[in-house]
C-alpha cells in the first residue's frame, strides 16, 4: 500500500504470468477478461449479484489455502493468479463432470445448442467420457407462463433467473424449491411469469437450455443464425439489440449490451415486436400514375419522371408527413427535398403512444416508453411536428386536402380516405406497403424497413444510435435515404449519397444537432447529442 497521502485507485497483479493493472475493486474474473483470459463461469453475470456458487470460476491464488472464486475475489496488489494451474484445471474438469451427472445431453433437440456455456466448456475442458453410470433424475418440462418454457433437467442451478427477477425486475416470481440435487427452479403461483414484462431476459441469461423461448422453440439452430447489430424499434428507448436472422427472416431479437441505454436487457414488448419485419404484402416496385392510371415502372423511369415534376413545381407549398419509424437520414432527406422544391407549409408525423411507461426497477435507465416508435426524438430534432392522437390517427386534415405538393414517407395513412391528396398538384408516397389512401399518389415508391437498411435513430435520452442491415429488401425496394438523396442530389446538382454514412454527413451539415458527428464516431453503441439536449 503506497502511503504518500495519495489514495491508490489501481492495483497491479499477475495473471497467468502476465502483469495487469486494474481499478481497485475489480474481480479476478474481470481482471483476467482484460487480458483476454476467459475464466469459465455460470452463476456470475455482470448485470447481477455474484453468489459464487457454480464453483467453476475457481482459480489458484498464490498464498491462499484453497482455490478462490474469481467472480467475488477482488484483485489485490502483488497477487499472483493462475487460471490454468493443474489444480484449477482439475477442479474445472471435476465440476463439469458433476454437471453432466444429471444433465440429459439432449443437445440435438435443445434450442441452446451451439451457444450453450455447458456445451462450450465441456468441449474445451471436460472429460472425454463421463463416469456416471447411475440413472439420471428427471424433472421434465414446465410452462413458466409468458414466453418462457423450463426444462429442469438441463438446468445447472446457477440461479441467474431467480436473481434477475429478484434484483433487476424486482418482481420475485421465481425461486429455488427443494434442496441438494432435488433443487429446481420454480414459480410461486399458477400464473408464473404471465404478465411479467421483462421475463424474456431470463431466457437470454440462462447459460444452458433450461429456459427457452416458446416463440423461438425449435425454429432455428443457433449456428444458422446471422447476428446483426440493430436498435429495437418498439419504443423511443432505443434498446441496443441484435437481429437474429435466417432465410432472410428475423427469427428473434436479443438485447445487446449498452450500459447507457439498456444494460444487458430489453422488454418483452420489444422482443416480441418483430413479426412485421418479415411481413409479406410489401411494395416491391415503383408505380406511377394516379388511380386507374397506376402502372408499374422501373426506378430509372420513376425517378426521372419525378425529378421532372419536382423541377417544374416552382415554389409550390409543400406539406410533409414523415414517420417516427424512419431513420434520421430518411427524414432529413424528406425535409431537404421539401425545402428544395418549394416552401414547407407543414412537416408532421404521427406516432402511437401507450397509456403508460413500464420501467425496469433494477436498471432504471431502461423504461419501455410511452412513444411506441424508435425515432420520435429524431423526427422532432429534424423539424417534424407531432400531430394526431395516441392511436396515430387523425391530424392530417391540412395535408389531405392540400392543393400543392404532398410528400408522405412511412405513414400508411390507415385512417385516411381514398380522397387523400385528390387536390394535390403532386403527391409522392414512399412506403413499405401500399395504402388505399395512396390512390391519388402520382408516385408510389417502395422503400425498405429499418431492418433492411443502414441508418440511425435518436432515442429518448438524446442518443443517436446506428443500426445495420439484417435483411435483404424485397423486390426493388430501396432505402428512403437513397431515393430521397438521389432526388435532392439531382435538384442541387451535388450527386447521390453513396451510403448511409454519406447521407448522415449531409444531414450533419444541415442540422446543428448533429454537427461535428461522424458515422464512425457514433459507432455501434451510439453517442449523446449534447447540443440538442443541452
Amino acid at each position: 500500500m503506497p502511503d504518500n497521502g495519495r489514495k491508490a485507485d489501481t492495483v497491479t497483479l499477475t495473471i497467468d504470468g502476465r502483469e495487469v493493472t486494474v481499478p481497485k475493486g475489480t474481480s479476478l474474473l474481470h481482471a483476467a477478461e482484460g487480458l483476454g483470459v476467459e475464466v469459465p463461469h455460470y452463476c456470475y453475470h455482470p448485470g447481477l449479484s455474484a453468489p459464487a456458487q457454480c464453483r467453476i470460476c475457481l482459480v489458484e491464488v498464490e498464498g491462499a489455502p484453497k482455490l478462490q472464486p474469481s467472480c467475488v475475489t477482488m484483485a489485490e496488489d502483488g497477487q499472483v493468479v493462475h487460471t490454468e494451474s493443474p489444480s484449477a484445471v482439475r477442479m474445472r474438469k471435476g465440476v463439469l463432470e458433476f454437471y453432466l451427472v444429471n444433465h440429459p445431453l439432449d443437445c440435438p433437440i435443445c434450442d441452446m445448442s451451439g451457444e450453450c456455456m455447458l456445451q462450450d466448456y465441456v468441449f474445451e475442458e471436460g472429460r472425454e467420457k463421463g463416469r456416471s453410470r447411475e440413472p439420471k433424475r428427471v424433472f421434465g418440462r414446465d410452462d413458466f407462463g409468458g414466453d418462457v418454457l423450463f426444462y429442469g433437467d438441463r438446468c445447472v442451478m446457477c440461479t441467474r433467473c431467480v436473481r434477475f427477477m429478484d434484483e433487476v425486475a424486482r418482481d420475485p416470481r421465481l425461486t429455488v424449491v427443494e434442496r441438494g440435487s432435488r433443487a429446481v427452479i420454480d414459480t410461486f403461483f399458477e400464473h408464473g411469469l404471465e404478465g411479467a414484462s421483462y421475463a424474456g431476459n431470463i431466457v437470454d441469461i440462462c447459460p444452458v437450455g433450461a429456459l427457452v423461448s416458446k416463440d423461438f422453440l425449435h425454429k432455428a439452430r443457433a449456428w444458422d443464425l446471422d447476428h446483426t447489430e440493430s436498435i429495437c424499434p418498439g419504443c423511443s428507448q432505443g434498446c441496443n439489440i441484435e437481429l437474429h436472422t435466417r432465410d432472410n427472416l428475423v427469427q428473434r431479437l436479443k438485447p445487446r449490451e449498452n450500459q447507457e441505454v439498456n444494460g444487458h436487457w430489453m422488454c418483452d414488448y420489444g422482443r416480441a415486436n418483430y413479426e412485421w419485419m418479415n411481413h409479406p404484402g410489401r411494395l416491391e416496385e415503383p408505380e406511377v400514375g394516379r388511380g386507374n392510371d397506376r402502372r408499374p415502372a422501373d426506378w430509372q423511369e420513376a425517378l426521372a419522371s419525378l425529378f421532372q415534376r419536382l423541377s417544374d413545381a416552382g415554389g409550390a407549398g409543400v406539406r410533409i408527413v414523415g414517420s417516427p419509424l424512419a431513420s434520421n437520414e430518411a427524414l432529413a432527406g424528406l425535409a431537404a427535398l421539401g425545402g428544395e422544391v418549394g416552401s414547407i407549409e407543414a412537416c408532421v408525423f404521427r406516432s402511437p403512444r401507450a397509456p403508460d411507461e413500464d420501467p425496469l426497477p433494477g436498471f432504471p435507465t431502461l423504461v419501455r416508453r410511452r412513444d411506441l416508435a424508435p425515432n420520435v426524438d429524431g423526427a422532432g430534432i429534424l423539424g417534424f411536428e407531432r400531430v394526431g392522437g395516441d392511436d396515430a390517427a387523425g391530424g392530417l386534415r391540412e395535408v389531405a386536402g392540400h392543393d400543392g405538393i404532398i410528400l408522405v414517407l412511412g405513414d400508411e395513412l390507415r385512417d385516411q380516405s381514398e380522397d387523400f391528396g385528390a387536390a394535390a398538384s403532386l403527391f409522392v408516397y414512399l412506403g413499405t406497403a401500399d395504402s388505399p389512401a395512396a390512390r391519388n399518389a402520382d408516385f408510389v415508391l417502395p422503400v425498405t424497413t429499418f431492418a433492411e437498411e443502414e441508418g440511425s435513430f435518436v432515442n429518448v435520452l438524446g442518443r443517436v444510435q446506428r443500426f445495420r442491415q439484417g435483411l435483404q429488401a424485397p423486390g426493388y425496394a430501396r432505402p428512403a435515404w437513397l431515393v430521397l438523396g438521389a432526388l435532392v442530389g439531382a435538384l442541387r446538382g451535388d450527386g447521390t449519397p453513396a451510403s448511409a454514412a454519406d447521407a448522415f454527413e449531409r444531414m450533419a451539415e444541415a442540422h446543428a444537432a448533429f454537427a461535428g458527428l461522424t458515422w464512425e464516431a457514433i459507432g455501434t453503441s451510439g453517442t449523446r447529442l449534447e447540443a440538442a439536449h443541452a
Partner: protein
Amino acid sequence: MAYPYRHEKETRVLSEGFGDPAARTVAGWKKYGGYQGIARALEIGREATIEEVKRSGLRGRGGAGFPTGLKWSFMPKDTRRPHYLLCNADESEPGTFKDREIIRWTPHQLIEGCLVGSYAIGASHCYIYLRGEFFESTRVMARALEEAYEEGLVGKDIMGSGVDIDMTLHVGAGAYICGEETGMMNSLEGRRGEPRIKPPFPAAVGAFGMPTTINNVETLAATPHIARHGGEWYRQWGTDKSPGTKLFCVSGHVNKPGNYEFPLGFPLMELIEDVCGGMRDGNAPKAVIPGGSSVPIMSADDCRDCTLCYEGVEAAGSMLGCASVIVMDETADIVKQVRRMAYFYSHESCGQCTPCREGTTWATRILRRIEDGRGTEDDLDTLIEISEQMTGTTICVLSDSLAMPIISSIEKFRDDYLALIRRGERVGAA
C-alpha cells in the same frame, strides 16, 4: 429422575444439573451457582470478560474448535450499530446429543451463557436458533426464558446493571445446513438456509447485516463458569491446547451409551471400555467415528492410543469435531454406514454449489450400487476422486464432511467394499 448413566470418573462442570428437574427453574439453577457468572462479568466489564475467556483457552464446541475469546474479540468495539449474538442450538450432526441435554436439563445455564456472550460482544439482542425437531427442548427453553424475563435476568436493565440484553428463541424448520453459521443467519432472516460466501465474515456483516457472533450451546454454557471462577480455574482440566471439560456423546455398540463429561485428553479406549461398559456382547471394536459423522472414520487400531482432545484425535488421523463418539463393533457393515451417511449429506445439501449438490448424490448412488452387489473396483477410484473434488471447492464444508468418511472408509476398510463387489461378481457369474 436419575440421569441415565453416570460414572464416578466424570468431571461435571456443565452436566452437574443433568437429571435434576429442579435445575430447570431459576431458583433451582441458582443452587448450582447459577447467575453468578453473569454477575461477575457485569462487575469486571466487557474487556475483562473477554480476557478471562481468552485466558481459559476455551475452544468452540460446535466442531471447529476455534478459540472463543479470540472470536469475541473480532467484534467491532464501536457498538453504535446493533451487535447480535446468535446461539447455535441447531444440533443436528449425526451422533451428537449434547446441546439438547444442556437445554432440556439446564436451560438457565444456556441463558446465562448467552448473557455472558452478549455482554462481552456488546450485543443487546441474542437469538437462540433451536433445532426444529427439538420439541421438548423448545418447551423447556421457552418456559425458562419466560421465567428469566420475569426475574429480570433477561431484558431491560438485567440484574439492575443498566445493561439491556433481549433474547429471542427462534425455532428452525429442521435443516442440517442451518447449523452452518452463515446458513443459520440466512434462515433466521427468513431466507433459504444457504451458507453465505465469506468474506464478509459474520463479525463484520452478519445477521441482518450487522456484526454477529455465532457460538455453540456448549461453548456458551461453559462461559458463565469461566466468568465466575476465572480462566485459570478452567485450565485445571484438559491439555495445554485443549483446556477444560467436554461432553462426550457416546453412541453405537457400547453397553452404556450416553453423555459423559470429562476433561479433554481423556483416553478413547478408557471411555469405551470402562466408562461405557465395554462393547456389546463382548464383541471386538471395528471402527470409531470420534467427532460426529463429518470426520474421518478410525479403525480399531487407530483408537488404541488415542486421547480425546483436539490434537490427540488429529494425531490419530481424525478430528475431535463435537466429540460425538460413534462406536461400531465387528458386526457393523461399514459400507452400509457410509452409504447411509452419504444419503444424509445428499439429502441435507442446500444445493447451491455444484460439487456438493451433484457430488453427494452421485456418491450416494454409487455406494448404493456397491451395497447392492453391483459395484466394481473402478467405482472405488471414482468415489475417491469425487470426494477429492468435493473437498475445499465449495462455500461451506458440507461436502467436505462427506468426503472424509468416504475416503477414510475406503482407505481403512477397503476389504469390506471388495467383499461386496466380489460377492456381486460371483452372483453375476452364476
